[in-house]
Each structure stands twice: as C-alpha cells, then as structure tokens.
C-alpha cells in the first residue's frame, strides 16, 4: 500500500532522510518510532505529497507521490503533528467543513467515525480551540477519517495527550485497522511500539530496524540487569564510572545496565555497588523491552 524506495531529503546542509526504503502492506499498522528530529515528520510529509524528496521514489496505493499527487490527496487521511483544525470553529463546524471539502457528509461516513466522534459529540457546539488535548486529537482523527481514506497517516497523534486518552486513541487505531485501513503512525513514545504490527526504529534520518515488536525484542541478546538503590543519582554515576560498564540508563524506577561483552554477572555488580556503600540494593536480570533495543541502537552499536 505504501512503498518507499531510497528516499533522501536534505534541508540546506542537514540531511533529514538518508536513503530510506520500506513497505507497508494493506491493512497494516506501521509505527515510526524515533526521537524528535529523527526525520519522521519529513518522511510523512513526503508521503503526503506536501514536500518533494531529493532522491528516490515513493508510491501510495500505487500512485507516485510526485506525479500523481492529486490522486493520492483523494484517498489519504492526514493528521499533522500540530493541531491543525480551525480553533474558532466548533467541533461540528470543523467536521462539516472537512466533509464538504472532501465532497461527502458526516451522515454518509458516520459509521466509520462513530466510535470516536460519539465521545466528543456532547461538545459539538464547543469551539475546537477550547477542547482538551485528548478531545482535540479525537476531533482531528474524526476529520482525517471523514472521507473514508484508504491510508491514514498520523504524525505523533498522542504527543501531549494524557495516558488514558493515549490508550483510547490506540484502541481506536486498532479498530480502524480492522476495517482495512492502512495506518502509518509516528510516535516518540516507545511503550506504544508494542501496539503496532511492525515498527520502524528511525534515527538521524535512517531506519535502523524494521520488524514486528516481538521480533525486535527477541533479537536483543544482551545480558540486561535492572538495578535499584536508595540513592539513584549516585547509583547511576557509580555505575557509569565502573570500568566494565557499557550502558546505564534510567528506566522508571530502575536503572537498566549492560556491561562490556556481557561479562559482568549480577553478583559481581552487586559486590561492586556494595563497596560503594549503596543500601537497599536490588540487582536482577530482566527481559528487554523495545526501549532497551532502541537505546542500544542509538548508541550506534550493532546487535
């Protein structure tokens, strides 16, 4: 449904995308995961025919993004990263406007947006600018869906949205996917990765890995420890000054720790930290998450 071949794009001297290639099947939910400035928005804008790539080709539903941009614009739904609806128009007026622009009506495609729109329908006379962050995103999704697109492209739809709304939002995406809509979604939150069929880890304009979340995690073979003590700040400094340490990152309540060549065992690590007079110390093996993989990739090492 989406096919990207060797796409490159530079802004002045900054290379935003470097030779990117991937494909998305029909009805698939692909997540683009990466930090700010990784090139997610640029990639999406190229696919949405909003900017031109420097090199490479891309097609959406078989249409070339450069030559057949008019065809593409009829069958894609797009939600930009910034809230891009009319703040001085009410919820209903916004939806009506986008329905009219796409040559349809709310009634005609009400089925598709019912689940989402019904949640904000009680506020339909409220101006869009006065909605909460989560409601804004629901409205924006409704507007992007109103013309029954075949492909849905969402640029960081859950950024700045509370946890509950984020969860609801992903549930909606799953439902849409079941209706056969191909979805490309970007997010800086790695915990959302597991909800995608496949994820593309993207950094500095390059796709570092693209696979299903479980395969990505399975491929991670490093020995990983979770470490905790009474003094977390001193703990991270002590760990980083330990000569055998490879990485030590804070992950919620714990530090995730890897050693050079995975040669350190839990007991050795515990011993080292006890020497440093850490109290309430906990050290144990854990299963890696997608974040661990990403951290590993970010540090520029091969798996």
């Amino acid at each position: 449904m989406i096919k990207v071949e060797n796409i490159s794009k530079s802004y002045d001297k900054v290379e935003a995308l470097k030779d990117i290639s991937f494909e998305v099947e029909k009805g698939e939910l692909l997540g683009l995961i990466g930090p700010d400035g990784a090139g997610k928005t640029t990639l999406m804008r190229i696919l949405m025919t909003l900017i031109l790539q420097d090199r490479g080709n891309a097609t959406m539903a078989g249409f070339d993004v450069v030559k057949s941009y008019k065809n593409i614009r009829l069958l894609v739904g797009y939600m930009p990263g910034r809230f891009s609806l009319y703040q001085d128009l009410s919820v209903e007026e916004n939806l009506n406007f986008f329905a009219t622009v796409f040559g349809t009506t709310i009634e005609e495609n009400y089925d598709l947006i019912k689940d989402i729109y019904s949640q904000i329908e009680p506020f339909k006379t409220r101006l869009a600018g006065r909605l909460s962050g989560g409601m804004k995103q629901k409205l924006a999704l409704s507007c992007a869906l109103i013309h029954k697109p075949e492909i849905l492209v969402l640029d960081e739809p859950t950024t700045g949205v509370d946890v509950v709304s984020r969860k609801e939002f992903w549930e909606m995406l799953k439902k849409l996917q079941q209706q056969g809509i191909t979805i490309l979604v970007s997010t800086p939150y790695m915990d959302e990765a597991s909800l995608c069929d496949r994820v593309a880890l993207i950094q500095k304009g390059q796709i570092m890995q693209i696979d299903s979340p479980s395969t990505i995690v399975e491929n991670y073979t490093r020995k990983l420890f979770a470490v905790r003590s009474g003094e977390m700040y001193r703990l991270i400094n002590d760990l980083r000054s330990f000569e055998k340490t490879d990485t030590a990152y804070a992950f919620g309540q714990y530090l995730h720790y890897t050693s050079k060549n995975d040669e350190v065992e839990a007991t050795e690590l515990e011993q080292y930290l006890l020497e440093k007079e850490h109290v309430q110390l906990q050290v144990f093996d854990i299963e890696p998450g997608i974040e661990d993989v990403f951290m590993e990739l970010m540090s520029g090492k091969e798996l």
Partner: protein
Amino acid sequence: MKRFFGFVKKEFYHIFRDVRTMLILFGIPIAQLLLFGTVIKNDIKDAEIAIYDQSKDEVTQEITAKLLSSGYFILDRNLESINDIEAIFKKGKVKEVIVFESNFGRLLEKEGKANVQIIADASDPNMGKLLANYTTGILNDYITKKMGEMKVPLQIKPEVRMFYNEELESVYLFVPGIMAMILMLISAMMTSISITREKELGTMEILLVSPLKPVQIILGKVAPYLGLSIINAFVIILIGNLVFGVPIVGSTILLMAETILFIMMALCLGIMISTAAKTQMVAMFISLIALMLPTILLSGFIFPVENMPMALQWLSSIMPPRWFIVILKNIMLKGTGLLYVWKETLILLAMTSVFTIVAVKKFKTRLE
C-alpha cells in the same frame, strides 16, 4: 461547487468570530472617514488676508470694512504693488489677497460693474476654496444691499484665482482617497493575513492535502472579502454623501463597476503578498508599508501628483490607487463617463490580471 461554498462559509465564520477582523472591516473605515472629514475644516475664523486696493475709494473702504467685521478675516496689511502678492504668499501667513481694480467705485456707479480679484493660497485646497467662497459671499451680500439703496442693477465681478493649485483638485478628494485607501487596506491586508494565518496555524497543510484546487482556495478566500468590501464602498460613499455632502454626479453603476474592479485588483494583490509572506506579521507589514503609505502619500490623495518631483511621479504611476482616484474623481465629482476613464480602467485591468497570474502561479500546491 459545493466544496467552494463550504469553504466560503468557513471563511465567514472566521471573519464574524474575530472581533479584531470585524473592527478592521467596519470600525476603521467609518472612523477614518469621519476623522479625515473633520480634520479638513469646514469653517473659517480669523484668516489672515491682505488687500491691494488700487482704488481707495468709498466703496472699496466699505467692502473692506464689511469683510473685516465679518469675523472671518483679519487684515494683515495693505499692499502697494502687484509684486507684493507673490512675496506675501510665499511667507505663508496670508491666505488670501483681495485686489480691487482702480476706479472701482466709479466704475460700479457709472457702468454698474466692477472687477475684484480674489487670490487664495490653495496649497491647502479646501481652505483656499472656502476663503474664496466666503469672500464672494460677503461681496454678493454687499451688492444686494447696495442695489436696494440705489435701485439700479449692480455687479461686482469677482475673479477667483487659486494659487499653487489652479484647478483646486482634491477638494472633495478625501472621500475618493479614503475609499481607495480603505478598500486597499481591507482587501489586500485582510486576504493576505487570512491566507498566511492558515499557513501559520498549520491548517494550510490539511487544505493542501485535501482535494481542494488552488483556484478554489484562492477564490474561497477572495469571495467573502469581495462582498464585504463592496458593502464598505457603499458605506463610504453614503457617509461621504450624507455627512460631508460629497456628490455623485456620474453614473452610480459605472462607479460600482469600477469599485469592484479596484477591489478585485487589491484582493489579487493580497493573495500575491500571501504567497511571499510566511507569517501574518510579515503579511501585515508588507500590506501596511508597501501599500498603505504609498496609497496615502503617492496616489495624489493628499499631495497632488502634479506637484511631485518627476521620479515620484513615475513611482506614483505604478500605484493602483492613483488611477482609481482619478476614476472616482471623474465619475463622482465631474460626472464623466467611461469615455474619459477608459485608460485608467485599462491600467487597473492590466494590474489585476498581472497580480492574478502571479498569485496563481506562485500559489504552492506543496509546503515548500
């Protein structure tokens, strides 16, 4: 078509819900009109005049006394030679010189007819004309009373000359001038701002991705402002007519047609600006500095084009309002038809098409 109307409807929501926009649309025109109308004074008090009396007889003394006792005029000095007139005007204090011909009283008595010349400083044209009108009014009053006494037809023939601005252009010009300025402001600035606002808020991104054609977006932006600007033009002409008595001598239909042409030109100019400007601020500055000031200063609205240095005259000829003001003046004040303004109309038409072509060509179907 339905898409287009949906878009226009949305534009009207934007306009009617934004207090600032409404204020610019309807508050500023009326305020400006009333302001300019009042600043251009309609009454005279203690205007300094000089008298060059070549006759110095009883009648001229009487007239002089009558003029000075009216409360409108103060005698600065009596002149002794015709050469003094130029010199005294140059000093700028004296606004009017009255010249009685020699043997004024005797001529009036014997032939029933005498000449008086009224020379006004028309560098402030409104003032000049008012002074001359008041003076002739007082002269006529004197004659009517004198006629009653003498029972013979008498006639004082005042010959009015306006110094520095012989044809007294721009007396009523402030209404055409303000009209040109306001229509320019609303049409060009408001459209350019409303398009750049879409860019700034990111909604342009969605509009571009939609099946809306650039022409539909442009026309959808233009249509509401075209309608509102026409209403504005009506209001300006109406206030000019009712409050300040500016006449509409010529054809109202032609006047409206020309006004719509000018509005279209300004709207296209606004869109052209918006294709170059990235933010509302930039659009506003371009509109204000590149459009408003030249409209006020170079279009002949305040300073007559004929009095400008050659270079500025050239510059003024690329200012659309200059031609529109000529058209307005001809239709409203002189009552002439299309026959006399076809050249200016053609210039406006040419400008409109150039702006449209550039605007459509430069309107981007992508973000960069």
